[in-house]
């Protein structure tokens, strides 16, 4: 008992803690896929944490567990030291898939979180308009998602989450479908936002350059069943710029180190895939 209480109190200095998270999906009646195995890590307040791992290893599943969209088979998620049992708007989740509602124009999509909260139409539109302008999307307030480019939609996804002013922001490979130029532009956009609002951000990517550019710390996940393989602190100076940072000697060095680590996991995934066929 005492030990449990002590554990709980030590956890309080973390914004977020994952204790012994394991999860499997039932592929069929008899078969199940073990996706996560005994995941443990903590996230500090105001930290920019990047999670990186091979494709299909369970990154999205992990975020779904951390946001309580999925209840893990085993283990516990703590938010501000307390077990997370329900979905909460303290967490803003920019999911991997497009999440704009196709029948709503940009301004009403961005304002949806406020609308759900019960904020009046004038006020929520005003706030949405400000965010839209700051994201460089002004003039498109009345456009529907299918009239926006991929990069514009992703920005809209992000400001939609910013509108509800969450304490923690999850981003699941937000830029993976975009071209290099748009991606760099949006990385700078994220760096600017983070510099300004300084929220806790958990960012999933399988682009190592992106992870180093953005994060304070990188956690490397193994191939399925995923565990945390290693951890790297990124002490590059801030404010950062996605373009300039690539030429810092320290950047190149850390990139090389993590890449060697990551390479093994990618090789494992490749083999695994071949065995399936």
């Amino acid at each position, binding site marked *: 008992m005492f030990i449990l209480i002590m554990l709980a109190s030590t956890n309080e200095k973390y914004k977020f803690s994952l204790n012994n998270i394991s999860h499997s999906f039932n592929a069929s009646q008899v078969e199940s896929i073990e996706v996560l195995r005994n995941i443990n890590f903590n996230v500090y307040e105001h930290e920019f944490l990047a999670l990186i791992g091979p494709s299909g290893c369970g990154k999205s599943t992990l975020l779904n567990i951390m*946001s309580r*969209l999925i209840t893990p088979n085993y283990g516990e998620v703590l938010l501000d030291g307390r077990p997370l049992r329900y*979905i*909460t*708007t303290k*967490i*803003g*989740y920019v*999911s991997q*898939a497009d*999440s704009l*509602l*196709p*029948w*709503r*124009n940009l301004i009403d999509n961005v304002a*949806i*979180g406020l*609308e*759900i*909260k019960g904020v009046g139409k004038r006020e929520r539109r005003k706030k949405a308009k400000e965010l839209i302008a700051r994201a460089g999307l002004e003039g498109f307030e009345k456009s*529907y*998602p*299918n009239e926006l480019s991929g990069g514009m939609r992703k920005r809209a996804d992000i400001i939609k989450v910013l509108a*509800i002013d969450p304490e923690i922001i999850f981003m699941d490979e937000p830029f993976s479908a975009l071209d290099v130029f748009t991606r760099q532009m949006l990385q700078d956009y994220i760096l600017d936002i983070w510099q300004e609002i300084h929220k806790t951000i958990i960012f999933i990517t399988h682009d190592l350059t992106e992870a180093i550019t953005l994060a304070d710390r990188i956690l490397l996940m193994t191939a399925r069943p995923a565990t945390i393989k290693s951890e790297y602190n990124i002490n590059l100076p801030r404010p950062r710029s996605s373009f300039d940072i690539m030429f810092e000697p320290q950047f190149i060095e850390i990139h090389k180190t993590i890449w060697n680590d990551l390479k093994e996991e990618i090789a494992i995934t490749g083999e695994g895939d071949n065995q399936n066929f």
Partner: protein
Amino acid sequence: MGRIDPFFFSRPSAIIVDFVVLFSSKEIFPHLGVTLYATLMGLFLGSSSGLVLAFILGRFQFLERVLDPIIFGLYGIPKLALGPLFILWFGLGIESKIFLSFIWVFFVMYFNAYGGFKDVDYRLVNSVRLMGANEFQVITKVVFPSSLPWILTGLKSGVGVALLGTIVGEYIGSSVGLGNMVMYAGNMFNTTRVFSSILAMTLIMIFLNEIVEFLEKRLLRWRVKSF
């Protein structure tokens, strides 16, 4: 040979004249009124109940497993064969026509709306849940708007079968209505009248269809026209 026999097909000029006479003599109005009323009632009752049932079955997996096969089985019964039965149950009055029309519309709306509710993207549902939406908000902000194209398609096909149900009902047994008018004219070998009645039905159809299309244009502005 090569000549169209006016006995069987009448002449366009005669049909137009007859059509005008039907209106100027006010003869058509009781028929038109009754048919339109039964059609709209059938359409309203059929689409609302089809929509409600589809929604309930979409929400409760157990009910769905039990009822969906039954509904599908009932759908297989030819509605035409039910006409005489309904007249037996509800009499020769307008109720039997409304009922036939209602049944027909019900299935059309049920299958469309059900498809729509099943097609809702769970990722969009999750995205509003994560923004703090309760069940009611999920339904009003995602489930219904997302199913709306399907529901409107159901309504559009519903308009057609609503009129069909009414006319068939009137044809089987009635004293008034456009279906009755066609049957009566047919028995009298009045081909011209048959065609002018058909013209009236066609116009009703076009009129109702225009209304649904107007709704569609207003409500589905966000959709891309793919072709």
